[in-house]
């Protein structure tokens, strides 16, 4: 068995090297399944090969090879992957519904395989993360059985009665996601107040995402009109949650209100009314603003609370559990980037230790048809242009629609229907500007987010909030531009797209043009696109993570390496000539930078400790290292036992957005 596995690993390893960019991503997926084999030595081999930068860039051999090898590799590894027993996070026997879990994993596998055979993620319908599909299958893992609250009797009243809110085996207390059927037609922040609709519409849920915005309608069966019921939020230990809830302050278990009511309380009295065939009372449960209450929740996937309904006349007492989930996390890549940029971002890809995140990757790296461009490139170079070379405004709608689609996927997970309105967004480099840009779109504050917007919190890593001086120099350096364009990384100020495209024939901004700026924000020395973002009225809680290169990262520029190659190939261009450890800082006026973006721009002029954290010894990206800088780069995994950028991101995902010294409400 081991021999067979090793040969599969070797085969995929060779393919990773040979098949080139297109097939590499599918192979990474296959590899990520293979790592679940209980063979530790093989696992190590994979992680090393899969993260090797050469694999994603070097070869131009067509991925046709994968057509021959992938089915064989898949057929061999599929049964073992599906039945893997050593990893509880992937073990379907631990699922609430083992057979459904197995079927789901099989479907996910088949879909991934079909996509791979069609030619990769650019194929329609394949633009998704297959690891995430496995996550989804395993979201049915049963939570630890909660201790029953003392002094209450579960649901003694409604046996044999109509089941207005039946879930978890009770019939008198139900939770319903009001999106979209229970939302008022004109005002997305309001719910309908018609009792018949409240009693019959909506989607049954068992949990709510801790985003502070989602809501669930609580349906409480009554025995007669006007029957008073006292609703309470109970902690996981059965004690009533603290009643004091202030607007904007953390309420660790959320709060209750009447339908469209202003209350913010953990105990609420409601009155039953007549519905079509029975009596029912309604209230709304609002989730906490943040999942984590502190250290005890940092590593949890979900936590639990109870909703208790007690009839004031003593007629019944019903208590039902409600699961609080982390909001989904969406990763957004940067300029010339793609989904696989996050392959080394282990907090989210290490399924064993971090299955707590429902993670998805937004991508805007699909090919676009560019007719003309500024600066001018040849047709051969323009065919290599992808959307990730275009500006913020062009990409924002695509990323927003993906974020909203991922929230929908999160809400409808098999076995765990959950009310959710927002996602946490982690963005690298220009991805941060695209994410900030989407806040200004009309579709951002959609009905599904109750008009509050689809982003719960934004964490930016190395984002040029005020642009970067390199952008202007790059546009003024034809030789360096040409080298990059030949590499599929085309610096554009503007481009005209061909049809079919929503921008067909209309000039759109290029990404590098949008990133032009001095980087310090002084006198608003940045592009119009950045200026537009700064004018957006709505704010998003944003934490900024910045990095700075040290001599350990830049001294390699003086070696016989890529920097020398660029200097030789583009002698005479100041940008090329500055690719030395002594001269590169002059690109940023001597100010600290990560090799591409000045720290002042990454922190939006803020200082470490006041809305941003600051890390030494990191270069901007893997692309930066290919210019001759020495890793680690900002998305590199933290070395074992070292608290680095990735650990910081995990911390920020657990950090409350109400702490405005960390999460600044910026536009």
């Amino acid at each position: 068995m081991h021999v067979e596995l090793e040969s599969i690993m070797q085969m995929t390893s060779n393919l990773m090297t040979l098949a080139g960019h297109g097939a590499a991503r599918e192979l990474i997926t296959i590899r990520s399944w293979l790592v679940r084999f209980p063979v530790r030595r093989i696992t190590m081999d994979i992680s090393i090969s899969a993260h090797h930068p050469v694999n994603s860039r070097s070869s131009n051999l067509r991925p046709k090879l994968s057509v021959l090898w992938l089915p064989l590799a898949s057929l061999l590894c599929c049964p073992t992957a599906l039945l893997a027993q050593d990893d509880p996070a992937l073990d379907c026997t631990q699922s609430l519904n083992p057979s459904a879990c197995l079927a789901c994993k099989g479907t996910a596998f088949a879909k991934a395989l079909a996509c791979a055979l069609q030619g990769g993620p650019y194929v329609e319908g394949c633009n998704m993360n297959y690891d995430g599909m496995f996550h989804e299958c395993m979201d049915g893992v049963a939570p630890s059985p909660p201790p029953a609250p003392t002094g209450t009797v579960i649901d003694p009243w409604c046996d044999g009665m109509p089941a207005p809110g039946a879930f978890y085996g009770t019939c008198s207390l139900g939770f319903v996601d009001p999106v979209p059927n229970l939302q008022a037609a004109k005002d997305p922040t309001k719910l309908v107040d018609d009792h018949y609709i409240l009693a019959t519409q909506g989607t049954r849920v068992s949990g709510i995402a801790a985003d502070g915005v989602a809501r669930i309608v609580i349906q409480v069966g009554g025995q007669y009109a006007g029957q008073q019921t006292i609703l309470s939020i109970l902690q996981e230990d059965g004690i009533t949650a603290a009643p004091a809830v202030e607007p904007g302050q953390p309420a660790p278990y959320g709060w209750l209100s009447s339908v469209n009511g202003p209350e913010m309380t953990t105990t609420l009295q409601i009155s039953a009314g007549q519905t079509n065939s029975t009596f029912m009372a309604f209230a709304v449960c609002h989730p906490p603003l943040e999942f984590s209450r502190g250290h005890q929740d940092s590593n949890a996937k979900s936590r639990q609370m109870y909703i208790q309904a007690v009839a004031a006349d003593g007629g019944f007492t019903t208590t039902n559990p409600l699961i609080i989930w982390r909001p989904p996390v969406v990763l957004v890549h940067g300029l010339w980037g793609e989904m696989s940029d996050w392959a080394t971002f282990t907090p989210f890809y290490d399924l064993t230790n971090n299955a707590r995140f429902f993670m998805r990757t937004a991508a805007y790296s699909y090919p676009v048809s560019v007719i003309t461009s500024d600066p001018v490139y040849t047709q051969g170079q323009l065919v290599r242009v992808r959307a990730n070379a275009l500006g913020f405004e062009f990409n924002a709608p695509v990323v927003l629609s993906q974020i909203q689609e991922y929230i929908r996927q999160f809400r409808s997970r098999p076995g765990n229907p959950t009310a959710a309105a927002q996602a946490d967004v982690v963005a690298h480099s220009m991805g941060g500007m695209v994410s900030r840009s989407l806040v200004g779109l009309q579709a951002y504050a959609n009905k599904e987010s109750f008009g509050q917007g689809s982003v719960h919190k934004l964490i930016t890593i190395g984002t040029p909030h005020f642009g970067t001086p390199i952008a202007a120099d790059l546009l003024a350096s034809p030789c360096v531009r040409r080298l990059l364009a030949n590499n599929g990384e085309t610096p554009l100020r503007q481009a005209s797209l061909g049809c079919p495209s929503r921008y067909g024939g209309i000039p759109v901004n290029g990404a590098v043009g949008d990133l032009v700026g001095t980087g310090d924000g002084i006198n608003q020395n940045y592009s119009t696109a950045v200026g537009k973002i700064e004018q957006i009225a709505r704010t998003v809680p944003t934490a900024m993570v910045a990095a700075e290169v040290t001599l350990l990262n830049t001294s390699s520029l003086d070696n016989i390496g890529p920097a020398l190659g660029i200097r030789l190939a583009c002698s005479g261009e100041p940008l090329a000539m500055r690719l030395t450890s002594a001269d590169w800082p002059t690109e940023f006026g001597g100010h600290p930078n990560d090799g591409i973006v000045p720290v002042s721009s990454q922190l939006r002029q803020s200082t470490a400790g006041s809305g941003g954290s600051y890390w030494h010894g990191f270069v901007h990206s893997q692309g930066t290292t290919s210019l001759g800088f020495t890793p680690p780069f900002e998305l590199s995994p933290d070395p074992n036992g070292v608290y680095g950028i990735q650990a910081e991101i995990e911390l920020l995902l657990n950090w409350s957005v109400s702490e405005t010294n960390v999460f600044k409400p910026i536009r």
Partner: protein
Amino acid sequence: MSLSQFDEYSFMTDIKHVRKSLQATILFAVGGAFAVLLSNLMHPMLPRWARLQGITDLTVIPIPFAVLSAVLFLRAWKALAAVPLNVMVWFVAYAISRQGSDRAQDNFWILVAGVVGGVGVALSDSVCCPHLLSPKRLSRVAFIGVVAAVPFAALKANALIIGSPAIGVLILCAFALWQASVGTYLYIVCTQRERMDETSDMAKGLQE
């Protein structure tokens, strides 16, 4: 001198020239790599204002080749003129290689630069080695120049410069290969007369 002695001597002469040619090849290869190292080392020594204006000292790259040519096979006072001519040829070839705006054109112009470089150094060295001026020899050196320029095209036009971690070694090898190929050919041609002279001296001795 007997006929067998002549054969043996002639054979030894051939061996000696082959050995010398190989030595020349190695010297030109090392010189080519050394030129790149030297250029990289000298870059930080330029005045800061010059570096920031994009000025770099590429002059050092052709110098080892020119000096080796002068020492190994030109060996005349006129070689002093060939050295600056060689340097000029390098700059012309370099300027040509910078032409082009996409991969296909980059490939084309780098190969043209290879031809111009090969023919150019042959013409420069013809100051001391006139029999390089034959069309047959010029076309041969042009062919060698273009073939030896292929690695440059592979490096630049395919943007390996941007992405490859081993690019430094490849750049050294590309310069070493071109200078060794062209230099060795020029060496063989220019020392052919010397070898023929040695052999004919022996033949005269045999007749006597």
